[in-house]
């Protein structure tokens, strides 16, 4: 039984069909890449999975539950986590507080009011910061970080609640080559407990970390398979060559 199964997803904005009968399955602990030219519907598909958009048609199941109409909050509570395309760390809060904010999201109201969980969450916060190489800056405001570091902080925040599935929309956007390489390294260890769906323009990056790829073009699924299968697919090559 796959962890996530989306079938027959269509999304229509007025006259524009952003997604047309798209499908996607992701297994436990699988890293799955979504690729395709600009405007192919990758981000829309991500939003339909995360609950930021409701698909016009289709069904999304996660961990054997139909979550098609779940709100983002309900999806997060079911174990799904999203990192936005645009970095949206909370700039005036410290890095520490950013992570704590993500960690305590499911604490009860009384625990929050009487601050009963932060003592035992301290170690987790510091571990997350260390894992993402941000521990030296723990008590700086997030606004003071470089763009790449903000992206890492955000991935750390998205992972803080130990999700079963992480959705990353262009995590390496605006990063230097070195930062991209480090991002790949930072993502490897999460495979032990988490699946990943990643949208990315950098094909080298995505080839290195993903188990399987799905290629979208003009809102349709063009191909889906292992990295090797996709690389050998003549149709996919044509699309990329045509647009290149």
């Amino acid at each position: 039984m796959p962890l996530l199964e989306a079938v027959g997803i269509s999304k229509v904005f007025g006259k524009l069909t952003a997604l047309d009968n798209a499908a996607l399955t992701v297994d436990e602990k699988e890293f799955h890449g979504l690729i395709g030219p600009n405007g192919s519907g990758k981000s829309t598909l991500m939003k339909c999975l995360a609950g930021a958009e409701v698909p016009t048609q289709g069904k999304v199941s996660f961990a054997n539950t139909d979550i098609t109409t779940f709100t983002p909050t309900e999806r997060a509570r079911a174990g799904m986590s999203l990192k936005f395309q645009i970095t949206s760390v909370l700039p005036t809060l410290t890095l520490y507080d950013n992570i704590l904010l993500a960690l305590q999201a499911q604490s009860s109201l009384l625990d929050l009011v009487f601050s009963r969980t932060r003592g035992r969450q301290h170690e987790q916060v510091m571990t997350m910061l260390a894992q993402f190489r941000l521990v030296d800056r723990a008590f700086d405001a997030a606004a003071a970080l470089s763009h790449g570091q903000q992206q890492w902080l955000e991935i750390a925040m998205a992972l803080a609640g130990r999700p079963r599935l992480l959705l990353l929309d262009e995590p390496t956007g605006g990063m230097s080559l070195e930062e991209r390489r480090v991002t790949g390294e930072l993502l490897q260890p999460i495979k032990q407990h988490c699946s990943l769906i990643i949208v990315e323009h950098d094909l080298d990056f995505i080839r290195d970390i993903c188990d399987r790829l799905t290629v979208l073009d003009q809102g349709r699924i063009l191909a889906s398979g292992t990295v090797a299968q996709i690389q050998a697919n003549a149709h996919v090559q044509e699309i990329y060559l045509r647009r290149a």
Partner: protein
Amino acid sequence: MSQLSSTRTGTRAAPSVIEASRTPTIGAPVSAEPGRVLPIIEMAVLIIAAVAPLTLQNYMTVYATRVLILCLFALSFDLVWGYAGILSLGQSLFFGMAGYGVALLSRDFHIASLFAVVPLGALIGLVAALLLAGFLLLGRHTSSVVFVSLGSMTGAYAADRLARGSYYLGGQNGIPSIQSMSIGSYTLNEGPGFYYLALIILIVVYLLSRFLLRSQFGLALAGLRENEQRIAFFGYKVQHLKAIIFAIGGAIAGIAGSLYAFHEGFVWTTILGVVMSTQVVLYVLFGGSGTLIGAVIGTAIVEGLSFWLSDNYRDIWPIILGLLLLLVILFRPLGLISLVLGERERVGTFRPSPKEIRDAAS
């Protein structure tokens, strides 16, 4: 391009004055570690407030009591707007409804005990805020700032009009000659007695608010204020958080309204309406939203200035006051407090104390 990014950039592209008050100004002092400015300001304000009646003439003490009650009212708006980012332009609804409620308690049931009046005021404010939150905040999808602000303002306006037309509520004239408040057998009249009562209640509410805002709940509110959508994706039930802080704000406004009614000795429709709501917005923006002491200082200065200006510039004082408010909001969007208080200390940190970490480990 995307719905997510367009809503975010949308708010950035068109910042209003109110929006700007939440954005840190460039060049504001930012220190790595939170400073120690806030406790000093708080202590200074407390000392001034504690000794004021000893130096003031009686009629000034009466005026100062009114200011303290308005400070309480300002705290309620600051909690809701400055901390949680909910622009309630109808905060007077809770203030006025509680005022009317306790006035009726006095008129129809001859009850004037502090221990009945203040809890009833809080309850009225709380329930009214919860009901309004049900309309404005508790939809399945998050409601926009404009919807909430106009909705709450409409509530205040409607309440004002309804009270004007109600015979039971005294119509235009309101409810006059409320009896004096009592504590046991002691009757509390205007002057130092009422002043210190208002001060004690203000201090208690202030400390409780500070406790709440420095807790992990306060961190959740900070997230709500900075990026509501983001924290919904963490799994926060943002609508619930908003309704809770809105209700707490309503309760505090209710306490203020009940004290105001007994202090003034009568209630009239203005305390329900838009004028009163706007006034509290000005207090908080002037002093500095997002700091509790800023709300208190703002109220005291605006009220003090109006008192002094109206005495000395009888004809044009509202214009002078208006210009001053405008200047502060233009050049100090974070309020007067930002002259001495850095951004880092204002936002503060929510990390656990060493003791909390030790306790959790054992």
